[in-house]
């Protein structure tokens, strides 16, 4: 059973994810987005199962509503599911440390961003893995650093504040 507080907080995090997805800095080649923070928070508050469901829904709704192009490919929805599970498994009910945050982001980067997402693009375009992977590597290495940093700052802040539990 999901409580009313859980419903509204999940809803707001999904909304936040859509809004943060629109916020980005940097150029086309090295774009830095922020929606990962909202997914991380879904994991932190709700654990793997709920975060996965919420993230899948968020993915479908945001891609449909925002029409961000070719993401009707169901593979990306599967990526969203896996990301939700990883964030939830790693961040729910655990003390937030730099190492834990780093491993979380590393898992996301390796499994979801470079693994699954490359596979989907491969399936969509028939381009060989290597061709797709090589240009991504610098970007992924960079995002590993900044995502770890930002996620850690935000999560530690939440952990130490009265916002570390919902519904009060």
């Amino acid at each position: 059973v999901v409580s009313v507080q859980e419903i509204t907080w999940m809803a707001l995090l999904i909304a936040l994810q859509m809004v943060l997805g629109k916020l980005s800095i940097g150029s086309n080649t090295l774009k830095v987005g922020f929606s990962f923070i909202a997914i991380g928070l879904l994991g932190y508050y709700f654990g793997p199962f709920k975060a996965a469901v919420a993230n899948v829904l968020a993915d479908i709704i945001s891609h449909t509503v925002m029409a961000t192009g070719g993401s009707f490919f169901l593979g990306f929805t599967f990526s969203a599911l896996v990301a939700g599970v990883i964030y939830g498994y790693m961040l729910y009910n655990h003390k937030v440390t730099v190492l834990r945050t780093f491993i979380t982001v590393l898992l996301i980067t390796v499994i979801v961003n470079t693994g699954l997402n490359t596979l989907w693009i491969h399936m969509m375009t028939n381009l060989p893995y290597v061709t797709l992977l090589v240009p991504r590597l610098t970007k992924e290495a960079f995002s590993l650093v900044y995502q770890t940093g930002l996620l850690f700052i935000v999560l530690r802040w939440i952990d130490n504040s009265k916002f570390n539990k919902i519904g009060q």
Partner: protein
Amino acid sequence: MEITFEHVTHSYDANSPLANLGLNDVSLTIADKKFTAIVGQTGSGKSTLVRHINALLKPTSGTINVGGRVIDSETNNKNLKSLRKKVGMVFQFPESQLFEETVEKDIMFGPMNFGFDASDAKKAANEMIQLVGLDESYLDKSPFDLSGGQMRRVAIAGVLASRPETIILDEPTAGLDPVGRHEIMELFKELQNQGRTIILITHNMDDVANYADEMAVMNQGKLVAQGLPSVVFNNQQLIKDDLLTLPKSAQFAQALSQKGFKFEKLPITIDELGTEIKQQVN
């Protein structure tokens, strides 16, 4: 610092066919070290107007001169810090800008961005927290453990800490209880007495009558009146066109004049009203 707007027009979504004018050919001078109130209905362009003073918005055409610094449509987004340091801005519900772990750090945030060194910023935090009516013990607390009214004060302290010469206030007392509102308004008057320019956006005409030296009335992106409150509130046309409401004292005087009292000029504060009535009754 005198602030002048010359033929300033601002259109939102300039490139879309739905472009709507936030400001329409506004020319206005805001005098140095004066307390200027800007009034007008919701959506009349008050907030759009003041966001031009620290270049959060840039004009589509026209220029704004802020103490010698010129802002126009070509103004670069970089190097605006010196301007923003001089022009402090308290937004509506400013407590939503708090984010640091302690009150002290949050108040220091602005000053540090503007290049104060840490000890100066700390000193400013200490001074400002007291100025807004809280004591030093609050500095170590988390801003999120405070009440709404206290958070508001901390946010205001955070803006004042950079020691701006001009302070813009966008409905700073919205939602506060009367006692809190009164204290905050007195604080702004005090800041003016210390030599700052105050620009206040408000819906409260009694505050305008009691505190402002000058006022400007906006409607649909246009400046429709400007001048001394005692003069502007006597502009019958504005009242008739529903562009301005009167302070309570003026409303009371107006009702009295329908009974048969005679007012050459509507009194706008309770003291003026009292004096007038005493003269006419005794």
